[in-house]
């Protein structure tokens, strides 16, 4: 059996927010999440990620630090960073005509109540000026609360995507 275990697959169509719940457990320390975006409505808009605690609540408190390197095909690269903000980065300034894209995220230690949850990601898509852009992303949620799921949301408009959550198994 593969040490990369598919835990959940969810396909959503034209939603503003999508919660994937009860996917993190003591079975895994590292999770891999793939996000295939097929549609985004409302241009110049961001897609972001929040964590869900064991009570099922989406955490929107100012507890996230994040940074990304935004690499654009038609213009200069850009840096973005925030401390004490309310979500992790995913996609930004999405285009509604060229509105597909992809993302690969890793979440480290979400279920561990002695550790913060760390985020690594790489994403791509087209921005509102129709420039291809790719991002390298880091993040940390600075609270040791147990995390059991995550929420993708759009700042405005809706999106369609298929999201797969895998656990990286360690057999000791």
């Amino acid at each position: 059996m593969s040490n990369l275990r598919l835990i959940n697959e969810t396909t959503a169509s034209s939603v503003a927010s999508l919660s994937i719940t009860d996917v993190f457990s003591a079975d895994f320390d590292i999770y891999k999440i793939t996000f295939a975006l097929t549609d985004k409505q409302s241009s110049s808009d961001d897609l972001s990620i929040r964590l869900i605690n064991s009570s099922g609540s989406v955490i929107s408190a100012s507890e996230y630090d994040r940074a990304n390197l935004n690499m654009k095909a038609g213009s200069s690269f850009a840096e973005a960073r925030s401390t004490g903000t309310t979500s992790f980065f995913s996609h930004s300034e999405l285009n509604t005509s060229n509105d597909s894209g992809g993302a690969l995220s890793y979440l480290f230690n979400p279920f561990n109540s002695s550790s913060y949850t760390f985020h690594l990601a790489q994403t791509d898509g087209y921005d509102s000026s129709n420039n291809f852009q790719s991002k390298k992303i880091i993040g940390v949620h600075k609270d040791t609360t147990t995390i059991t799921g995550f929420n993708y949301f759009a700042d405005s408009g809706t999106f369609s995507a298929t999201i797969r959550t895998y656990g990286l198994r360690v057999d000791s």
Partner: protein
Amino acid sequence: MAGQLVQVATETVTSAVASVTLTGIDSDDVYMFAFTNVLGTSEPTNFSYRLTESGTANSTSNYDYAFKELFAGSSFNNRTGTNQNRVLMNQGSGSTALETQQGILYIYNANNSSEFTFTTFETTFRNAYGGALQGAQGGGVFTVTSAVNGIYFQQDSGNIASGTFTLYKVV
């Protein structure tokens, strides 16, 4: 069966060790290394790696690397090195609780004694400077045409206090 991630080796550190070595690379597949909750015993220092040949870490000046350092609180930085004796991956890593390091590293052509061994890596951690979020995105190359069978990790000063390290084969 193709299309799997197969665990090759793992080590969980619960009391301080000078280094962690994982071996078992014995095919021409791509290998993936994952680490999480890594904490040092002193700070600030660098978390670095070398590659092993027949289980022994090669510390000769045959590593080149280049990566981008990302910071949540300050401007990003370029890090490069040529003819170094290790790849300095996480510079400024810490020993204070919750300043842990996490990352994913891929290894290419390791088993091929006619090729250099290449690595790509992405990491995220809270550094020794007040626990600021930092990460590394880039890669390295071991410029020796030999068969590499594993990887060796160390904190450049002090020891590794904790962490889980796992080597997988991508088949």
